[in-house]
C-alpha cells in the first residue's frame, strides 16, 4: 500500500475518533497541531488504527513516532 493511501485511511480514523471532519493531516503533522489530539485520544487513535489495518504496534513503537509520517512508515512496514 502506498504511503499516501495509508494517510487517507488514517485520516478517516482521525475524523471518526476525534469527531472532527475538518482535521487535515500531512506527514509533518504532530499532536501539537491538532487540538483534540492529546495523550488520551492518542491511545484511542492507535487502537482504532490497529483495528483498521488489522495489525498490532509494540509499546515501544507507540512512543517513538515524532509525527504522522513516522507512524505511516511504521504502518507501511507492517502491511507490506
Amino acid at each position, binding site marked *: 500500500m502506498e504511503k499516501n493511501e495509508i494517510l487517507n485511511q488514517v485520516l478517516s480514523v482521525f475524523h471518526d475518533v476525534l469527531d472532527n471532519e475538518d482535521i487535515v493531516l500531512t506527514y509533518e503533522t504532530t499532536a501539537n497541531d491538532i487540538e483534540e489530539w492529546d495523550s*488520551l485520544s492518542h*491511545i484511542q487513535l492507535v*487502537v*482504532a488504527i490497529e483495528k483498521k489495518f488489522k495489525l498490532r504496534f509494540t*509499546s515501544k513503537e*507507540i512512543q517513538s513516532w515524532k509525527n504522522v509520517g513516522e507512524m505511516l512508515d511504521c504502518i507501511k512496514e507492517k502491511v507490506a
Partner: protein
Amino acid sequence: MKDFSALKKNLKKDFSSLKKIKVAILGDSATQFLCQALRGEGYDKGFDLQVWEADFNQIERQVFDPTSELYEFAPQVVILFQSAHKLLGKYNKLKPDAQGSLAFQELSAIESFQATLQSALYCKTIYFNYTEIDDAVFGNYANKIEASFLYQLRKLNFGLMEFAAKTGNFYVSDISSIQNEIGKANFFQPSVYINTEMVLSIEAIPKVAAKTVAIISAINGNFKKCVILDLDNTTWGGIIGDDGLENIQLGTLGIGKSFTEFQYWIKKLKNRGIIVAVCSKNTESVAKEPFEKHPDMVLNLEDIAVFIANWENKADNIRQIQSILNIGFDSMVFLDDNPFERNIVRENIPQICVPELPEDPAEYLEYLYTLNLFETVSYSNEDAERTKQYQVEAQRATLQQKFTNEDDFLKSLDMISVVESFNKFNTPRVAQLSQRSNQFNLRTVRFTEADIEQLGVSGAHFTFSFTLEDKFGNNGMICVVILEKEDADTLFINTWLMSCRVLKRGMEHFVLNTIASHAKEQGYKILKGEHIPTAKNEMVKDHYKNLGFEQSGEHWVLDAVGYENKKCFITIK
C-alpha cells in the same frame, strides 16, 4: 452495543432533561476513559451522571481522610476499581509466607472502605471484582496451593460475593464475567497498559460501563419485569400447527436441546419473579397442547401469567398483555425468532426491548446471556409468587364484569388488609416496591434495604406497609407510606406508593383512613402531601385533590382533626 467512540459522542448531547446522579470513581489504574464511557452510557439510559474522578491511586486517602475531595463532592454512588493487575503487583511484593493471606488482607481493607463510606456518606458502593490472571507459576497445581496468586484471586472474588450478600448498599460489578465473555486477549491490551496505565482495553470499556450503569439504573428503578415469548421456533423447534405434537423439537436430542435449555432459563427467570407471558400466532387450543401434553416441556401453563394465541397483529396483542399486567412497556422483553414480527413490534411499541435473536436457535441462550437483560438490586420471596397473582387478577377481572354496581363488587371480594410498620421481615419487599413502583408513586423516592433500616432508627418517621387479600388470593404487600415529622403539628407524606395491581379497590381510601387516624392519635393536626411529576406518574397527578386535600402552594394539606373516614370495603386484620 455502542463502541467507545460512539459513547464519547454522546458527551456532546443535551443532558439537561436527564436525572442527575453524582458518581465518584476511585481507581488504582487510569480511569479517564471509563469516566467518559460511564457518562456516555448513562445518557443512553436516561441519566446525567456527574462523574468525579479521584486522582490516580488515591483510594485510601480519599476514603479515610474526612476532609478529602471525595466527601466534599458528596456522591450518591461511589465506584471502587482496584484492578487485578495491581493486586498481582501487591502479591509480587509479599514475602512467600504472607502470600496465602492476600485475599483476607484485601477483603478486610474493602470492608473498612465500605464501613467508612457508609458512616460518612451513605452512598451506594459499586465494587469491581477481579478479572482472572493466571501467572502460571504453579500451572494447574495452583488450584491446590493456597498461596498461589490464582487461588488468592479467586478466593477474593468469592469473598466479595459473601461480603456483598450480607452488606447493604454494596454491589459488585462483575467485570470478571466480561473478561470471560470476550476473552483476556480482548479485555486487556498490554501496549495500552504500558503506555497509559489503563487495564481495560478500548473494546472492554463500553462493556464495563454498561455493566456498571445497569446497577445504577436498577437502583433507580429501571429494570425488566416481564418476558413475552413467541412459541413456534422460539419456545420449541418447528411449528405446532403444521408439524403436530409428536414432531416439534424438544428434549435431549439435536436441536431440541437448545429449546429445552432455553425453557429452563425462562423457568429460572419466572422463579426469580419475572412475569412470563405468551404471544403467539396460533389457534389457542393448538398452542396450549404442548404445554398440556408434551413430556419434554419444561414450562407449563401455570408458569404463564398471560397466554395470548390468536391470528391478530402481535403489537396489538402485546398492548393487551400490557393492559392486563399494568406495567410499563419499557419493562418488557419480547423474544421472537421471526425478524418480521420483531420489526412490527419494535415499530409500533418503541419502548419495548426486542433482542435480535440469532438465526440459529443453538445460539439463543449464549446471545441472551450477553445482553444482561434482567439486572436487579433486590430479591424477595414474594417474587416467586408474582405469576400466580397476575393469574388471579385475570379471574377477578371476569367477576367484575358480572356486577353492575361497583360497591357490590367490592363488597363481594371480602378484602382484608394487614397494616404494619416496617420491620426486618418486610424490609426487602418495601425496598423492592419503592424501586419497582413508577406509576402510582407520588414522589418516586427510591429506598434500598439499608435506607429503610436507617428510617427505622431515625425516630423522625412513621412507616406503614399494607397488604391486600381477597377471596381470590393474597396480593401480598402492595402499598407503602412513610410519614415524616415536619413540625409539632404537621406530618409530611414523604412516600405514598402503591402497586397498580390493586387500583380501583378503594385502597387509597383505606390508606388515608389509616394514616389520618394515626396522625390524630399522635397529636398531629395536618397531613401534608406533594406530587413530584415524572414521565410515568401522571396517574396520581390529582391524587391528593381527589382525596379532599387542599392546595397550598406546591403542596396539598388535609385537616387530620376534622377528617371523616371515607367509604371503603376493606377490613383491617
